[in-house]
């Protein structure tokens, strides 16, 4: 059974009188532990597909299952709960809260879910150490480099053991050295910890690291390259 199952999903935006289909009739299966990259030109619908898969918004049509539960029928509360418990996010612009310290940023999903402060911060601390940020725990995001911020964002994305991590251009705002380091961190999480990763990118070297590469154009899946067949694909 797939971890994520996208079944004939469309997402239409209304801009004035005209309806723009950002995603049209897309179907996609992501297996547990799989690393799937979505590539395509700007405006092809990558981000929209990620938003729909990431429980940020509901599709206009079609069905989505995450780990066996329907997402497309959930109300806002349900979506929030799914995001909080089952999903992790990494973005191009890091999206850390500037007023919180690094450790607090990482622990945020646990704290919002009602976790005890001590245990939450404990877990965050060990993840920060794993991401090489042990010496930066009490710094504010503005005091960190882009690479450090993105590593903190990755730590935040995984601190609560999500079923799926969604990453939108995670290396897009970094120099190549830092970008490589981030990619390496993500790949290691995928290989060593079995983290399921759905990632949108422009960068060929990032796509090259994926198990499968989904090519999108004009809101549709153009083709899917399978780089490394995943054992659990059915």
């Amino acid at each position, binding site marked *: 059974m797939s971890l994520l199952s996208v079944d004939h999903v469309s997402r239409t935006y209304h801009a004035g009188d005209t309806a723009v289909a950002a995603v049209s009739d897309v179907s996609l299966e992501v297996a547990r532990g799989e690393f799937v990259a979505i590539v395509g030109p700007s405006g092809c619908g990558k981000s929209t597909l990620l938003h729909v898969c990431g429980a*940020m918004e509901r599709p206009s049509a079609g069905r989505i299952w995450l780990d066996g539960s329907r997402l497309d029928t959930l109300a806002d*509360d349900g979506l*929030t*709960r799914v995001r*909080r418990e089952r999903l992790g996010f990494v973005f191009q612009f890091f999206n850390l*809260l500037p*007023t919180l310290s690094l450790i607090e940023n990482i622990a*945020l999903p646990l704290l919002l879910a009602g976790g005890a402060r001590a245990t939450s911060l404990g877990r965050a601390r060990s993840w920060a150490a794993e991401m090489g940020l042990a010496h930066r725990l009490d710094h504010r995001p503005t005091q960190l480099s882009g690479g450090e911020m993105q590593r903190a964002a990755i730590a935040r994305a995984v601190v609560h053991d999500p079923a799926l991590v969604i990453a939108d251009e995670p290396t897009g705002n970094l120099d190549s050295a830092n970008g490589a380091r981030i990619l390496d961190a993500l790949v290691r999480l995928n290989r060593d910890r079995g983290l399921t990763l759905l990632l949108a990118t422009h960068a060929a070297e990032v796509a090259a690291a994926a198990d499968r590469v989904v090519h999108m154009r004009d809101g549709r899946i153009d083709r899917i390259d399978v780089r490394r067949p995943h054992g659990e694909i059915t």
Partner: protein
Amino acid sequence: MALFGWFILRRVAQERMRTGLTVAGIALGVAVVLAIRLANASALGGFAAALDTVAGKTSLEIIGTGLGVDEQRLAQLTWLRTWGDVSPVIEGDALAVLSPNRTEAVRVLGVDILRDQPIREYRLDVGAGARQPTAQAFLGLLLDPSSVVITEVFARRHGLVAEPADGSEAGGRSTLQLAMGDVSRTFRIRALLRNQGPARALDGNFVLMDIAAAQWAFDRLGRVDRVDVRLAEPSRLDEAEKAIGARLPRGLNVQRPARRGQQVEQMLAAFQFNLAALSYVALLVGLFQVYNTVATSVIARRDEIGVLRALGTPRRTVLALFLGEAAALAALGCLAGIPLGWGLARGAVAFTSATVTTLYAAHAAGVPALTWIDAALAVGLGLPLALIAAAAPALEAARVSPLCAVRGGTDDTGETPVRKRWTAAGVACLAASAASAQAGPLHGLPVFGFLSAVLIVFGLAALVPAALTGLARVTGGRALGWLGIEGRLAHASLTGAIRRLSVSVAALAVSLAMLVAIAVMIGSFRETVIYWVAQTLRADLYVATARRSNLDAQATISPSLEQAIAADADVDGVDRFRALSVTFRDRLIVLGSGDFRVLLDHGALVFKAPADGPGALASAIGRDAIVVSESLSLRFGVRVGDHIEVPTPAGPRPFHVAAVYYDYSTDRGVVVMDRATFLRHFGDQRPTSLSVYLRSGADAEVVRARLMAQLAPTHRLFIHTNTTLRAEVLRIFDATFAITYGLEAIAIVVAVLGVTGTLVTLILERRRELGTLRLVGADLGQIRRMIVIEAGMLGAVSQALGMAAGLALSVVLIYVINVQSFGWTIQFHMPVGFLLQAMAVVLVATTLAGAYPARLAAGFRPADEISTE
């Protein structure tokens, strides 16, 4: 200009909430200032207008001491005629009894209608409509002591008509019930006055009588209130005033009619000055709002300013843009504030006129028409002050480097040195405040006291950033753990925005400080008055006439009333109190007489000096000695043992000051002499009130009810028991200060609006952060809670700062401003209950102020805020 259009106006138009709040803030501030100005003008304007219209063409008036001019002395004044037309006048207030439950105050002018025309213009309409004027009507007016002439306006308002002279049936009611003192009589309306000359005074509440009739009706046989003189050669006014003054016998004085207006103005000056000063607090808070708005606008738009600068916009254009924003907001605010102010003024007049009438026995009129001057003042005050308020952030905008556009906005750079400078300024303000509090009054007004208060306010405002930073550090750890992650997030986001928040917090703290200060001041005053009332009011019953102006010398008790009360079986003794308004060192003070023996027996005075007050009082009996109120002592620098010149009908006479006593009934200053002494100098005068002592065992309520049942049908009077009079004193007290609370409440509303506005701005700027929060799992409830906690924290912090500054302010109010304005010693007293209530209300209000921003924040959809492409 085009740049201003798209860069500023579009944004002002787009951010309706923020714009609306700012405009509302300025509008309220301007409105309050305007309202108080109009209300003050109405109190004086009503008096001045009535004075002017009633004075007519009077150039000079001859006045006596408190009791008017004795007719015997008048007979010797025929030489006045060589200067021009001379007209003796009886002027008094009466109650027109329109129905058993409805009365209206009217001004009664009694003149010699044969000789008064050169001084005042009258046009009479006799009989119904177009009836031929007849000699009988005029003779009736001249000869029948129950004749009155009322104004057309008054007649129309109450459906009254003039009595037809030929004895035919009147087309309506042609009689008018007038109560003068405690006696109510029916008068015949002989004619109507057209709406010109004195008839225009007081909205038509004007009654004309012949002087003989007025003298009898007011029980002032043997004297007139003054003599109006119209000079044949008005250009020789100065010469005439000097020459007449030199020739008048001792005890009579000549003055210009405007002098009475000036004296009333002086009498009200302190009261009005205090109101005006308070009204400016609301404006100040509104201006904080302008600063706040422009400052956030600049901070939020650094990138755009950078782009403008990069594209070659000069600094001064950027400066002009943001000053323009302030001006636009202020203009809108003023525009809205002017009509609002006029509306508020009606409410304020209702409040203040009661006070003015109760405490100063002066008349307030309706709200004066809004003039261009008022509008110009509102704009002339609002606009420049708004520009000054916006100057600092606009200058900061002008300093933004073009690099900002390239680098992206950086926040809160160079905060530390700025904060240090503010802190230093704050400390300096407080030091200056302490120094200013030591200075004496200026022209009888506590100018330095208010300067001291203003410096405390500015000091507080300047210290807010430092206080917030310190507070954030102290509370950063576990202190707010009980509020959970939302509390932590709220604290974190507020801490990150201290610089922006400082202004809102300062505004709210200033308002709260004023509230606390005024609450403490009034609370202290109230406690003091309660104590004083308990000490002073010792009689069982108090009898006064129906016109409730306790110190108005005009309303006297008739002999029949006095005899009826003295004759009651349960009455043990009656003390007759007489009060007069006299001019002492160019100010109107109150001269009273009471039975010192009775006062001694009942311990009804609380002495400030000397140590043995009762002994001093006892020694004053039988001599030309007086006791003076504390306010008189402070205002005129009069001390025990001094000899001061007290005006008497025979001219000023030296009196020994035996003691100073506490008095909170009036700030005009009171001189009291023993009744025997008074009789010796002033002759036997009708009392203005009676204190009645009952036989032991008599029930005051029962006696009161019995006397009322016996006397009310024939007299218009009030009888208070000791208990009800105490309640009445406190009721008047509370009514007096109601407007103070009203003003403060408005200032707080403005400040709470400011908090809302600030939160809205913060939220708009934090869209991405809020989106992130939503994304990583914050549900809507958590977002809302966070924002509401932020609002509550702002409220709490402002509260704490306001409380501290408020206590400091209250010390200045009680020990400096109050003493210099009114000359009252007030015992410091914390109205703990009220303060706790107020704090709770403000905390709830600010928390509620977070409700709208919270809803706004919850409305963001995470996907929209995160999208980067």
